[in-house]
């Protein structure tokens, strides 16, 4: 079980509004797992519950360590990097500062090495290191968010709708990088995505979430082959 992310019987919501009703799934170490589903299904809520942004009932364990009930900063210190919806850019700070914040809970000279590594993934950021992050384009900000997350040297990367608001070309580039990261760094990735095509393209496992419940699970290929999914999320019939 080493570094698997295990979620069991997860309930979460906002105030009186329950959103997740007993979600259960496992992501094996080094795998990419895609969470699909319509708007309002609870995908973002699921990621928030995983990273501790909202309180949840149930069990979440990472490599046997329980994440449930921990605050987001504690979860981050355990190696879970959450790239939130809207990217969470620190607008007035420079690109470099944004990246360094990613490594906030780590110490040591390796931070400088990691900065170099990020530059190889995202050459575009290197040119803009001293620029205010708020002045970046949407795609660049998304790359910055990914870069910031990588600076944590995460065991698990949680990506919330990385394609939102981006041009198709940029999105494709982004997913290419995520895949590269996954293969090169052996980082576990959970990606929530409307664009099921792209997500399934890099995922090994996938789950379909509807009204707070997982209605379908399987390998990426199985999910792609499912007629319902094809109709609803892939926009074509099999």
């Amino acid at each position: 079980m080493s570094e698997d992310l295990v979620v069991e019987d997860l309930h979460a919501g906002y105030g009186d509004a329950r959103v997740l009703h007993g979600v259960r799934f496992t992501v094996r170490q080094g795998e990419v797992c895609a969470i699909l589903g319509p708007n309002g299904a609870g995908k973002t809520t699921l990621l928030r519950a995983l990273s501790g942004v909202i309180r949840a009932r149930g069990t979440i364990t990472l490599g046997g360590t329980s994440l449930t009930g921990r605050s987001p900063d504690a979860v981050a210190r355990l190696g879970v990097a959450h790239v939130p919806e809207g990217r969470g850019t620190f607008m007035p700070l420079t690109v470099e500062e944004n990246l360094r914040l990613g490594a906030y809970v780590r110490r040591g000279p390796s931070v400088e090495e990691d900065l170099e590594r990020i530059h190889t993934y995202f050459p575009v950021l290197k040119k803009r290191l001293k620029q205010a992050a708020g002045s970046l384009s949407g795609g660049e900000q998304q790359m910055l968010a990914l870069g910031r997350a990588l600076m944590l040297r995460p065991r698990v990367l949680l990506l919330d709708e990385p394609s939102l608001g981006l041009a198709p070309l940029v999105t494709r580039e982004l997913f290419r990088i995520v895949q590269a990261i996954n293969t090169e760094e052996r980082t576990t990735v959970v990606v929530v995505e409307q664009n099921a095509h792209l997500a399934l393209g890099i995922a090994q496992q996938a789950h379909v979430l509807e009204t707070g419940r997982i209605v379908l699970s399987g390998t990426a290929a199985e999910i792609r082959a499912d007629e319902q999914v094809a109709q609803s999320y892939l926009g074509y019939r099999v």
Partner: protein
Amino acid sequence: MAAFLQQVVEGLGAGAIYASLALALVLIYQFTGIVNFAQGELAMFSTYIAWQCVAAGMPFWLALVVTLAVSFAGGMLIERIIIRPVEGAPELTIVIVTVGLFIFVNAAAGWIWTFLIKDFPNPFPGGALEAAGISVNFSTLGVLGVVALVMGLLYLLFQYTKIGLGMRAVAANPASARLVGIRVGRTLALGWGLAATVGAVSGVLVAPLLFLEPNMMGGVLIYAFAAATLGGFDSPLGAVVGGLVVGVAETLAGAYVGFIGSDLKVGVPLVIILGVLLLRPQGLFGRAAVERA
């Protein structure tokens, strides 16, 4: 002309006082989005601590260090005990809590130290610097110098230390700061502590000029608000520049605008606040709240 320049110098002297308190206001606003109405009273209370230390026989500079340390701890404690329980409550609830704190601290200071004025040692020499027919008091220069020094230290802290980076991250995006592992609660407390410390510096600076009593900062507060508004509520540099501008504007208006005279001078901050908010709501140095999606 010399008379005019002299008025400007006087204005800068008053402005330095406003600037120092505005700086403390801005620090808290930056990190928490709270306008702390009790900021001036906390500064006043800190000054009393310094006074008590000096009265107990401590040398001034040691007393200052002790006061700054106590203020820092006190600021953090207030965040923990008074503000934390209402964190996330509507803006107005927090405003009212700081108003309650204002009343409480003011009365507590009067209770402990009475409402009689205390003499507070002036760390700067008396006398004045004379040049070109203008005289600048050493204490005015001292206040300006210390405000500049505090600004500089804050700049170093925010730009070149990891803690400072974390604090700016919290100010910019608390939710996201939490996700990168920053303990936001601790940082907010740190912000309050820092603001209380800057406030303490402000109080110690102005006490020899305004004379120490529990209502010392009451009159300064509205000018500090005007300064912070003018400079931009999220810009420490703006607070200082704003303070100086407000001080000069107020002094010149009082001296040269017949209708205003010295009794209606307090209309100056009103005009400044209103003017800034209508023409440039983010202030001179603030950043527009518009963010790119």
